[in-house]
């Protein structure tokens, strides 16, 4: 059920200011890839270009199976206007958009799915509360519930773990594993190299251009002599040159 995405000589950025370039390669259908790179390397810009919010400055993105609209995206929280008066449940229900669109009602089956999604992320008790009282971690759990409901073949995540507690990280991780098993294509921006090494099969390192892309063990072992302590992810100049 996944989607595959091919990049051809992709260059991207904002208003002629190139942030990331020379990206060529293919995200295989059903693959599970971590995107690593230092701050400002262009990770978020990369995801935004894939989903079409930003247009590539040059080059092409080709979706081979499925289409761009069938994509679930976990944004950084700064994009969300939390002061807008909607409840946690309403916010998560946005994930049902494909079924309900502009005017269809949320039927009994959908309501059940919504309750289930909120239960998985542990927000049942807060479902009637407005989103402006949520903490950073709770907001992330709400976004996660929305992604569960979107039920998309392609899932793009921008630092999904940044303020989650240990319990929610485990929940999220088991969901990711389940989605991977179901054959969905997953791309996620992460910072914790140890986590990537343990759980994520493929890795893509970028820093203003493509640094390395392939099986996680290959990509990371190439640099293990440079970075003996896997817990502190620092980029040696030789990787980046």
């Amino acid at each position, binding site marked *: 059920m996944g989607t595959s995405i091919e990049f051809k000589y992709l260059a991207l950025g904002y*208003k002629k200011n190139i942030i990331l370039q020379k990206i060529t390669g293919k995200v295989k259908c059903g693959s599970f890839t971590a995107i690593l790179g230092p701050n400002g390397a262009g990770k978020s810009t990369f995801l*935004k270009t894939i*989903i*079409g*919010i930003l247009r590539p400055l040059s080059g092409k993105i080709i979706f081979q199976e499925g289409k*761009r*609209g069938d*994509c679930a*995206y976990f*944004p950084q929280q700064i*994009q*969300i*206007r*939390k*002061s*807008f*008066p*909607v*409840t946690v449940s309403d*916010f998560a229900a*946005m994930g049902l*958009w*494909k079924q*309900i669109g*502009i*005017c269809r009602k949320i039927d009994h089956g959908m309501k059940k799915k919504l309750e289930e999604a909120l239960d998985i992320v542990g927000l049942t008790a807060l479902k009637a509360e*407005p*989103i*402006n*009282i*949520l903490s950073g971690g709770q907001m992330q759990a709400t976004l996660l519930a929305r992604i569960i409901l979107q039920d998309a073949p392609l899932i793009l995540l921008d630092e999904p773990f940044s303020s989650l507690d240990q319990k929610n990280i485990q929940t999220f991780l088991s969901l990711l594993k389940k989605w991977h098993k179901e054959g969905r294509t997953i791309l996620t921006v992460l910072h914790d190299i140890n986590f990537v090494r343990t759980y994520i099969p493929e890795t893509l390192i970028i820093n203003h251009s493509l640094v390395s892309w392939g099986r996680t063990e290959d990509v990371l072992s190439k640099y293990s002599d440079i970075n003996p302590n896997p817990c502190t992810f620092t980029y040696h100049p030789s990787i980046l040159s």
Partner: protein
Amino acid sequence: MRRAIISGVAIAISAPPIGVFLTLRRMSLMGEAMSHAILPGVALGYLFAGISVTAMTIGGFLIGFAVAVLASLTAHITPIKEEATFASFHLIAFALGIILLSLQHSPEDLLHILFGSILTLNNMALFILISAAIITICGLLILFRPLVIDSIDTEFLYLVEGRSSHFTYIFFLGLLLINLVSGFHALGTLMTVGIMVLPAVSAQFWKKDLFGMIIFSILIGIISVYSGLILSYHLDLPAGPAITLIAGMICISSILLGKQGGIIWQLMPSSRGGKLSQKDSE
């Protein structure tokens, strides 16, 4: 007087819900800017056709739309932000409007355009006001869901709907303009934003949920229009400013007494209202 009340209620039903979205999206000053931006269009309509309701309405709508598009485009292709482009373009448009109006030496007409004439509306103006209210309410009912999503998470709407998601924002700007150009006949270009924004701000101090805020803002709008008209009739005051002043007094009382974060509730040590203030986040 009956006409005045009917037209006032029509404005009070359609403008405050737009104001609720404007304020929650932090665009209330943009509403203010747009209200000035329609002036050259109104003035052109007036120069060509005199005090013709239709000509002024169409002119105002077209020029308002042009200013909005210009300001948005400029923000898109240059480094300055929308807030600055709107501020610049509305001032240019307003100055141009005043110059155009001054070509016709009729201070009474100028007052009519700037502050409205709710007490002497003709059939056409009444028709336009009622149609605008119907279009606004129907439009909001149809586009309520995408508009809410666009207000919270624009990128999500783009993700699921693609380019057509921009239509939601354009449509909202369209509704804003319809309300401004129809409202100016009754309350004038300068006062229409008052009945849009003041009840919306007041409602946020009483209701937590969006639907409640919208209903409450309409009620406050109707109360303001009715009491404003009565006040202006008995004390012989200009009607537009009287209505706006009543809405303003309700707004100040709400800021002080409103259960959702009103100042008095915040000062009380054991109150819940103060802690759950709207400004908590972001």
